[in-house]
């Protein structure tokens, strides 16, 4: 539990409103992730002018198979998100989980077929909706777990940035929040040993590593242990999904950032009786859904994040 770090509802809402209406494009400018709103032409131009930049995108919570009132057509909105991401020409895409809604083979098939529309390669982590098969996540790991450790965690380097995929949706215990587990934390410690502290680090996972809202379980029990291992690095960006809305927190050199879903919105922390799908007027739906892009430039330690909605797609 990270009650010390838990934002009050007011703080969380303040944070939310500050970021509402944007979609994120991640950009690494000289090594520092920076976000700029999709459609922020000035930001994109500045990024290009800086030279030596690369960008990647984040898509999350596609929930293929969902068919309720909050969005009867999640495949359609995923298609719109894909067009948006392709237009930003990212080097690769991070999918931060809940690919499927019920872990059915046909849902994974449909999602995979749709995600083939992305022109860039995709790196995945599972969400808890991807572990609902009889094997408790076996279908996800068969499809996406090749070459990964444990229940699907791994790392890779790109353009001088170290990327770490963490998995916090397995072996959840009654009464607790999400869980990384001792094995994964040990692996993370070993993995980071070889990384210089001046290297920008991007961690991506499904459920927030920090406690966004404890009553709804929006946090990771042992997330603080992972965060402690990241504190020595000059630039750390932690990206996740799960809560279907943009919330950002900066703590020292670590930026925590949650992405919108492409499937359906969820209420702000504590703003509804439960965190389930939030029904909004159909004409407003796309203003609640979106993607994130991140721009980076080698030699610059911060990344530039940009959240963009599917509105006007």
């Amino acid at each position, binding site marked *: 539990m990270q009650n010390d770090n838990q934002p009050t509802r007011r703080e969380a809402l303040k944070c939310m409103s500050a970021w509402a209406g944007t979609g994120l494009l991640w950009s690494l400018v000289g090594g520092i992730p920076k976000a700029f709103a999709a459609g922020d032409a000035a930001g994109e131009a500045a990024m290009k002018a800086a030279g030596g930049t690369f960008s990647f995108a984040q898509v999350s919570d596609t929930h293929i198979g969902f068919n309720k009132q909050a969005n009867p057509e999640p495949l359609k909105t995923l298609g719109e998100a894909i067009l948006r991401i392709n237009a930003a020409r990212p080097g690769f895409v991070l999918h931060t989980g809940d690919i499927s809604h019920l872990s059915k083979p046909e849902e994974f098939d449909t999602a995979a077929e749709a995600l083939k529309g992305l022109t860039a390669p995709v790196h995945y982590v599972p969400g*808890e909706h991807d572990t*609902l098969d009889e094997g408790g996540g076996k279908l996800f790991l068969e499809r996406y777990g090749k070459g990964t450790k444990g229940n699907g965690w791994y790392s890779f380097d790109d353009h001088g940035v170290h990327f770490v995929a963490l998995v916090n949706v397995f072996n*959840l215990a009654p009464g607790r929040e999400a869980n990384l587990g001792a094995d994964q934390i040990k692996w993370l410690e070993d993995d980071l040993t070889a990384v210089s502290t001046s290297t920008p680090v991007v961690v991506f996972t499904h459920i927030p590593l920090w406690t966004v809202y404890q009553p709804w379980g929006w946090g990771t029990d042992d997330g603080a242990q992972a965060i402690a291992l990241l504190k020595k690095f000059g630039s750390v960006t932690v990206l996740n999904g799960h809560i279907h809305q943009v919330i950002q927190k900066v703590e020292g050199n670590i930026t925590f950032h949650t992405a919108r879903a492409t499937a359906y919105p969820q209420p702000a922390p504590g703003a509804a009786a439960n965190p389930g799908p939030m029904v909004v007027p159909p004409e407003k739906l796309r203003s609640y859904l979106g993607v994130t892009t991140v721009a980076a430039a080698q030699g610059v330690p911060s990344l530039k994040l940009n959240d963009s909605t599917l509105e006007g797609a």
Partner: protein
Amino acid sequence: MKYLLPACCLLCFALGLPALADAPAKNTVEIHDFKFAPGTLTVHVGDSVTWINRDQTPHTVADADKTFRSAALDTDDKFTHAYTKTGTYKYFCTMHPQMTGTVTVLP
């Protein structure tokens, strides 16, 4: 009015309907607003408990000691488990582990 109420009850009884339309069936746990209701339930050995999901998001029902786990329960899906031994059994939703409940099984 004095005579209408008994007549109505009699009719319900005759049709095999519960007296109150929304009264939960015996040994049924409703899942609503990410909570199990009732959160504690007492049954007897051999009784079955049925969980029904009323949320717009899927849930599971899993014994805390891993003796059983339901498949994903989408909206209005049900899961039934028969308790065959006395004891106090904690269960939870593996997707939203803060959702917990208890079944006490008496002889």
